[in-house]
């Protein structure tokens, strides 16, 4: 292993002389040798899969669901957020989410709720810095892909009417005020609030789906419905695009849930297995309900059901077995259908692409059911888990997250409305955001052009 060592030292800027010194002392073990190459390879792969979920998976899924005149605005929000969050994550997001300075297991302090500042700009992190069995720099970029998709999920709720500038400002503040603390409380390790409570959230039912879903519900109420909703028809303009995006999300979710094991092992394998089972079950459930209720099964129903099952199994994926995957898929397929159709219509809010109905409800259902199906008696991986107590813990964490997320999102939105303004004017909305905000159109299909 001489050659990689030379390369590493050279990259660190160690003088040539020191390289030779290191070569002369093979007993000086470098941290790089301590990394598990299997784990590292799987998390590297998962990182790419999770970024692929947003770019272009989610962008296409959402882009296909809006009208022709707004397709670019949605694609652009997803891509711009990927860039914006990358920068924020580097500057301070990662530090606020994962710097555990001052945390002590069992002790509740400020650092139980928000990370410290010792990792600003990834200070002090080299390719040799470990995080478990993988490099910390890999953990940083893997988690970055989660931080990217979470605010991108929210844009579905205010699609076709939110100003681009408002989207950027809202998402930037939201990432630091909502995502970073909830992420820290859940995944910060011993001493962080939810972790000390014993909350199960394997891959982000709380951190990603409840936060995004609840924020989406608040956002669509604060910004108000699209003009013409619900009397003007606003059908998806390109179902093919939507279904392609769904496929990318489904496949990418193997990295989302499987990668969250942070290891190439049986836990990761079980996570992707239950992910697949839940997605398939929820997709089939949603499709079957439609078949009974509307007389015909629909592609959009099948696709939406799959996303609901994927979101719901996310918190549970590393804790439950196949029975859990099936049950969570069944429950989320049914409940997310009700939330996105009957309940939404009855309450009259315009969550345009059903972010709350699918991710909020799915994430909540999965978070609570993780406390049930993690038990060994249901084929889960947590042996003789006290189900009643664990469900209570899961429910409490979910409710705290809902309450904090809803309040913080409301305040951020009001502040953004007072500063840059949330909503495009009436004329711009009817022309479409693509022309009004970006001077582009998605399709130039006129004959002869």
């Amino acid at each position: 292993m001489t050659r990689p060592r030379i390369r590493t030292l050279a990259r660190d800027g160690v003088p040539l002389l020191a390289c030779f010194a290191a070569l002369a002392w093979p007993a000086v073990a470098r941290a790089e040798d301590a990394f598990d190459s299997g784990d590292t390879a799987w998390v590297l792969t998962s990182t790419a899969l999770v970024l692929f979920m947003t770019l272009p998976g989610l962008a296409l899924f959402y882009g296909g669901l809006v009208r022709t005149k707004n397709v670019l605005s949605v694609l652009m929000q997803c891509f711009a957020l990927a860039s914006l969050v990358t920068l924020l994550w580097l500057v301070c997001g990662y530090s606020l989410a994962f710097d555990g300075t001052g945390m002590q297991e069992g002790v509740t302090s400020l650092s139980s709720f928000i990370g410290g500042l010792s990792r600003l700009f990834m200070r002090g992190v080299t390719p040799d810095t470990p995080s478990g069995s993988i490099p910390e720099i890999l953990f940083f970029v893997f988690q970055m892909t989660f931080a990217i998709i979470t605010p991108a999920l929210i844009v579905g709720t205010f699609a076709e009417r939110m100003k681009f500038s408002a989207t950027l400002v809202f998402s930037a503040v939201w990432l630091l005020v909502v995502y970073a603390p909830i992420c820290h409380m859940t995944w910060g390790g011993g001493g962080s609030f939810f972790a000390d409570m014993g909350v199960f959230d394997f891959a982000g039912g709380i951190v990603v789906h409840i936060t995004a879903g609840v924020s989406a519900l608040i956002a669509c109420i604060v910004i108000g419905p699209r003009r013409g909703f619900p009397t003007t028809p606003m059908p998806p303009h390109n179902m093919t695009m939507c279904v392609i995006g769904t496929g990318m999300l489904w496949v990418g979710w193997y990295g989302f849930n499987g990668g969250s094991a942070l290891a190439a092992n049986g836990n990761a394998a079980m996570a992707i297995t239950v992910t697949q089972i839940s997605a398939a079950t929820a997709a089939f459930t949603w499709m079957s309900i439609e078949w009974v209720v509307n007389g015909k099964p629909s592609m959009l129903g099948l696709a939406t059901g799959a996303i609901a099952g994927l979101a719901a199994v996310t918190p549970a994926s590393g804790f439950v077995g196949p029975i859990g995957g099936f049950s969570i898929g069944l429950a989320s397929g049914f409940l997310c259908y009700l939330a996105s159709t009957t309940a939404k219509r009855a309450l009259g809010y315009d969550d345009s692409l059903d972010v709350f109905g699918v991710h909020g409800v799915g994430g909540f259902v999965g978070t609570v059911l993780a406390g049930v199906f993690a038990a060994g008696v249901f084929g889960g991986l947590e042996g003789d888990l006290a189900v009643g107590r664990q469900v209570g813990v899961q429910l409490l964490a979910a409710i705290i997250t809902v309450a904090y997320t809803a309040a913080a999102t409301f305040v951020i939105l009001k502040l953004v409305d007072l500063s840059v303004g949330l909503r495009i004017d009436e004329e711009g909305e009817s022309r479409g955001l693509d022309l009004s905000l970006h001077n582009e159109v998605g399709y130039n299909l006129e004959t002869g052009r």
Partner: protein
Amino acid sequence: MKLIIAIIKPFKLDEVRDALGAIGIQGMTVTECKGFGRQRGHTEVYRGAEYVVDFQPKTKVEIVVSDDQCAATIEAVISAAKTGKIGDGKIMVQAVENAVRIRTGEQGDQAL
């Protein structure tokens, strides 16, 4: 001369074209269009939200023929476009005052 306007089901276009070719029709103009007659529209459902689409996609075929070809042309369109189900379309006939071939300046039946 007569202008024959045939509104037909889009998937019948190729058969209509072949039938007209078979009786010696030299040209036609085809337009994709939308409309409704007794067939009315259809309903689309996305996540439980129903949208009534009033207009059906149709294809409009315009053919200008000499007076003595008119009956045969109508007959050919009907034979090719008919499915016997609602929504097969309509044929309208108009008198045409003149026609000019731009390249040569030929007029009337000579221009067809």
